[in-house]
């Protein structure tokens, strides 16, 4: 493992995990997807390190990993869980409301819109960088983001 990767990990792991927690609404799933993404980055670190924004690559991979995991889970439907996670700890302030609203908003979006919005606003990439990360034209990103934001406005207007 290179020191360069460790430095990259130290700089970007936590933010990526937080973004995934908000995007997925589940800390465990987010951690799993983030770790898997960083593991894949480590496996092909030379290539990833050469990218303009390696952190965008990792965030995109984490999103894809979580999406693939959900699909796989749907294919292999097991019995409904008889044990459910629960927290007896009350939410604090209104921050959690924000988080839940964002999670619900993202969950309702098509994959490409969700990817574009997360990369643009959670990953803080420019439109051009989002386009390169997603392998499409800037114009496509702009229209995708436009649709995503319209959807976001609709779903978040009730939340303050």
């Amino acid at each position, binding site marked *: 493992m290179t020191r360069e990767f460790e430095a990259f990990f130290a700089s970007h792991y936590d933010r990526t995990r*937080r973004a995934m927690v*908000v995007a997925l609404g589940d800390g*465990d799933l987010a*951690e799993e997807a983030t770790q898997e993404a960083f593991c894949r980055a480590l496996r092909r670190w030379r290539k990833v390190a050469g990218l303009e924004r390696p952190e965008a690559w990792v965030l995109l991979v984490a999103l894809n990993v979580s999406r693939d995991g959900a699909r796989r*889970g749907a294919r292999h439907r*097991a019995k409904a869980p008889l044990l459910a*996670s629960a927290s*007896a700890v009350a939410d604090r302030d209104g*921050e959690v409301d924000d988080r839940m609203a964002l999670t619900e908003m993202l969950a309702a979006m098509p994959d490409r819109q969700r990817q574009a919005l997360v990369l643009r606003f959670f990953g803080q990439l420019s439109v051009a960088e989002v386009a390169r990360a997603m392998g499409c034209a800037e114009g496509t990103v702009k229209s995708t983001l436009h649709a995503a934001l319209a959807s976001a406005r609709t779903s978040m207007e009730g939340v303050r």
Partner: protein
Amino acid sequence: MTSTEDLENRIGRALAAVPAGRPDPLADIKARWNRRRRRQRFGATGLVLAVVVAGGTLALTAPPPGRGPAVAGAVTTTFAPLSAAATPAQLAQDAGVLRARFDAMGVPGAAVSVSGGTLVVSGVTGREATLATATPVFLARPVLCGAAPSTPANGSTAPVGLPTGCSDPRYALTAGNLGIAAGGGGSIEVHPVPPDPALTEQPSTTPAQEQPSAPALLDTSDGSQRYLVGPAGVTGADIASASVKTSEAGQVLVDLRLTPAGSTAWDQLARAGFHQLIAFEVDGVIVSAPLTEVGQSTFSSFQGELQISGGFTTSTAESLATELDGALPAPLVELGPTPIWLPASCTATPTLAPTTPTPTWPTGYQILDAVPSALAAQYPTVYGGLAAAPATPGETAVEINSHFLIFETVRDPALEAEATAAYPAPLTVTFEVSSFSQRCLLDVQAGVLAAGPALDDAGITLSGVGQGEAQVGVGVTDCGPAGDRATTWFTQRWGSAVAVTTCESAQVMPGLAG
């Protein structure tokens, strides 16, 4: 209208509100990566591995240094039954369980064999061997009430008698207090129940204090809270098999299949705690405390199935499933890595009489986690001395429960006669060590030389060990990183004749690196 700026603000607040994740995720990622690399390596080089394993097994029975092949990198670990009553059949069954566990861990090249009442595991790292043979304490207990997280204050308080229930009914984590409707309906939103203030000052129950049949106050694995839990209804002995599964939502679970007796016990526990929390505890820590059957209005049997969702990553879930998967018929205790002898690079410098024979003795070193009893019996001069309480601090005794670095010199038989004739006085060997990492040196001082003022006092002197063979040893605890090296000096004396052998040796093995 929600503006882009507003959205960005909300995202910023939401990101900031995300609680901290699990500690040391980099270690999880490294473990994940190493497991994949290992799978690839074993798949490609099975033949090479088999050769190394064979060599490692040979080392078990091969003579000490200079007489056996040097096997670099391979770690062979020996385990013995914890109970003297264990039968050969049970040991053979253990071997089968271990092979299955290594296979589940993605280490198909591991070799497990029964040898002389012990189990010899090779082709794996020491950590993998320890993991596969571990038998964690698994307990399922009813949750009675919550308690504030551990703090240095309550952690240091002397233990007092634990209550068997909550100090007030309103603190009890019952279905009523949690607000779970009798009709179920699938909702898992629960009313917050305050922690029992009477437990705040109570220290958590330690694994040493804990008894399955008694209540316990245990921390959750993320340290966010504690629970007072009742007597265990299910234990590790009730588990028939364990594996890793992914839920519909992609959550990583440890899936347990219980024995018939375990299934009955689990149903009894779950029925009694219907719509309440049940804690799953591993080695004294609650890894998960789910609600039972919240989507149902009446209890139904779990049919011997149990899934633990403990906030696992694939890596941590696989580790736990491996440990829980099938109890070892004969629990094992690790004797330590089988000695691996490596050649040391030494230069001998006779410093006195020109007739002094140059001690070109074979020299080697081995690194152990503990002193295997068989070796202790074979080499009582070294190991017996190491095991004994020190009559004089700094002489021969070292702390046993540590990593050991054993040096041994075996004299050339041809020189033996010459030396005996020329120097009939008893041979004295002085062993000195330096140049380890600072951490290691501190450990030496702490473990060996509690009364020793300086590094040079790490010298161990053995007198009168015989003319034909000199054995010297020193124990160190948890030496530095892999590849860390030490320089050692052997000073051999026959009467007035002195020969000094300087060795650039002691390389810390990767499997034992701190």
